[in-house]
């Protein structure tokens, strides 16, 4: 099974979720091995996910957390 750049783009959501079939996964890896442009795209999309998971999360300020905990009668 061989795929082109457009077909790889269509598989990317499943690619990142690890939901590709073995055949699809092998085809994606074969394509990435020979296509610099798609490899760059995939690397950058991986970078987006890394930035999001490492820097996108916020923490409720401790004083607010305590205030809400008290208001919910959780102490």
């Amino acid at each position, binding site marked *: 099974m061989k795929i082109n750049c457009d077909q790889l783009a269509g598989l990317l959501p499943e690619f990142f979720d690890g*939901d590709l079939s073995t055949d699809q996964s092998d085809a994606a890896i074969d394509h990435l091995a020979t296509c610099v442009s798609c490899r760059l795209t995939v690397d*950058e999309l991986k970078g987006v996910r890394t930035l999001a998971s490492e820097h*996108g*999360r916020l923490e409720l300020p401790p004083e607010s957390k305590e205030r*809400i905990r008290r208001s*919910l009668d959780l102490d």
Partner: protein
Amino acid sequence: MYEGSMKTPEPGWLFDTFADGVYTLAYRIVRDRHLAEDVVQETFVKVIRSLASYRGDGPIAAWIYRIGYRQAIAVTRRRREEPLDPIAVAVEIDRPTGTVEEQVLAGELAARLDEAIGSLSEPVRAAFVLRDVEGLSTMEVAAALEISGSAVKMRLARAREEMRRQLEDYLT
């Protein structure tokens, strides 16, 4: 992560486990620190009130985020015509640690990330935050947003491509 089908989880544990996640989702939707805190409070009032009727027939994370998301959307609709509070936004986006240089870079990155996430349409943004920031599975995101798994994947593809375009300088 709690997977359901066990005994009813303890409210304090639920709050400690999910408060930051609900706050992250709420802030990314309403883009105001104080309103996001209100969303957290209202969400857990509803979670605790409904806990006895929670049947454990799905991931509890999706159930809690669904309540939080509905609450955040309700707040957004109420204040759609009101301007954002830029001070609240600026204060909230990051609390960097490390050397001064690292703090400046981390602060700049947090601001760019905040801006990029904020530029996504609200439905796309919610899917991105739950999947790529909070780390829920695609099916949990679908349950939280009450949409299909394929709709989640379409929104994620759109979000990641837009984020890639906007954060290009940080990805090379």
